[in-house]
């Protein structure tokens, strides 16, 4: 029962959503299932946040190395949660000024807006931008045009990079009209329109077939890996 019921839950939910695309009478049920899915996804965020809190609280209570940083994480977590749930600094909506909580939580000037604007967005952008250095150094160490395939990859990357910068005008801007097609910006465009499109198209078709097969295996109960060990 413990293992059979989840299989039925997954099958009924999945096939209801699929059927709602073909049978108008089932459309309402499909929408309801999707709404329930959205609610459960939001609850999953709560679960994730609770899990983070649990991990860091354990680290602090055990005084493991780096527990001070866990305190910082927990403090930021608690503070953001508090100002977000209480909509600190958010004015009511103009149509309902008598309801203090009617304003949007992300309204400019509010505390949660401030946290996103001045903490989350700049830090995540800075962390992602660090990858520019790591990608460059990794490419320098790893890329060697040892064979035709590696040469194609490396050459294409260079053409794409140079073709979309001002450098392309300096390098190939002087080409006569007869060989205009060999200008870096035109080569870059042609690669994107033909070779990249063809490769991506095949990859997308492959992914779609893979997703369809995996989804069907799950819905038909053939793939039961999500039930955990023992199956």
């Amino acid at each position, binding site marked *: 029962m413990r293992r059979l019921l989840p299989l039925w839950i997954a099958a009924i939910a999945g096939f209801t959503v699929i059927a709602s695309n073909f049978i108008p009478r089932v459309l309402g049920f499909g929408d309801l299932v999707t*709404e*329930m899915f959205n609610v459960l996804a939001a609850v999953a965020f709560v*679960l994730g946040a609770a899990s983070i809190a649990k991990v860091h609280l354990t680290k602090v209570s055990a005084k493991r190395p780096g527990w001070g940083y866990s305190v910082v*994480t927990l403090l930021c977590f608690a503070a953001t949660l508090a100002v977000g749930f209480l909509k600190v600094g958010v004015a009511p909506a103009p149509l309902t000024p008598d309801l203090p909580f009617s304003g949007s939580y992300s309204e400019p000037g509010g505390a949660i807006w401030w946290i996103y604007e001045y903490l989350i967005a700049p830090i995540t*952008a800075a962390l992602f931008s660090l990858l520019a250095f790591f990608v460059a150094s990794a490419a320098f160490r790893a890329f060697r045009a040892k064979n035709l395939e590696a040469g194609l*990859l490396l050459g294409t990357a260079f053409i794409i990079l140079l073709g979309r910068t001002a450098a392309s005008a300096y390098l190939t801007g002087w080409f006569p009209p007869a060989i205009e097609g060999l200008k870096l910006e035109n080569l870059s465009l042609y690669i994107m329109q033909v070779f990249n499109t063809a490769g991506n198209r095949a990859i997308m078709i492959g992914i*779609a077939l893979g997703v369809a097969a995996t989804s069907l295996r799950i819905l038909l109960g053939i793939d039961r890996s999500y*039930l955990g060990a023992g199956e």
Partner: protein
Amino acid sequence: MSRQTIIWALIGLLFVGFISFRALAGRMGRIYVEPKVQAFEEVPADPIPWADQGDRPPRATWNPVTPPAGAIDRRGVWQETDQSGAKIIGWTSWREIKATEVFEARAEALRTGGREPESRLSWPRTIGLWLAALFTLAAFSFLYRDNPFYKFTESVVVGASAAYYMVVGFWDVLVPKLFGALVPWVVREVVQPTLRDPSLADRLAMAAALVLGVMLLMQLVPKVRWMGVWPLAFIIGTFAGLKLFTFIDSDLLGQLRAATAQSPLVVVKELVPGQPLGTGEMIWQSFLASLQNSLLLIGTVCTLFYFFFSMEQKGAAGRVARVGVWFLMITFGAVFGFTVMGRVTLLAKRFEFLFDDWLWLIDPRGVHQLVSTILGVVAGA
């Protein structure tokens, strides 16, 4: 102290000195705002004569009115009653404005002896800007090596992000959908008075979602962890159903349509009226378009063939698969190029933030021109 440490300490001191000088003398890294006072007067609703006893009484409407004198100096949301006994609620919201506008307005007021503008320095936003800049530098410090500043920044963003997305889920999904269906009167009284009455199906579905949600949270309790598998099955099943249809419809069929019906192998360009295109040029254009579509189809088929593992790729099949690999390599090269470009763009944006928004050393948007800064200093802004 080693020589390297002394050099780094000197560089750090020089940097701090430069920032301090720019902050005090150059007035860098400041955000100015202007107020917008809003006030609304209550207009009680007339009772509906034919309403049933169980019906909700109609809500009062709120009309915008001119705010009373001195309202700008009141903090937060304020309430008062006017002479006619009507309730007035109001607050001040602040809009960010260019420093240039502030300095010029103040210099003008100083020159003509007119009234000082209402704009002012926003301390919360200015502190936020400085924090953002310092955290950006702390993140970049990882390029030197892992250090406490970077770890601190990492801890801040992990804690704040986790809670932020929880807040988003709460206000965007749980309140309007879950609570809106199960306790609509509470949501109406607190957040959304226009919320429609949920149907019985909505209530039942959300009650089921609530039960599944509670079961999902049981994952945290080791003794009843098995309960968490049921909602997980629901999530996986629904997701599988959604993706099955979406991927087949848009990716598989969409791409097959694009590869066949929308890309004919033989293209004949027609003479467009008013377009001076010679016959030779037309034939050349037609040939190029046909070649492009043929290459697209050949590339797609060959690449798909490479992914076909049910037969050994030897002989002719191997050669076709090899062509597919070439197309794949070119695709990966393009993806890699774009990835590098995206990251470099992000890096440039961060530098722009540091040098423009924070240090005021460059001014591509004309927000804080040097002239305005000097005017501001003169005017004592």
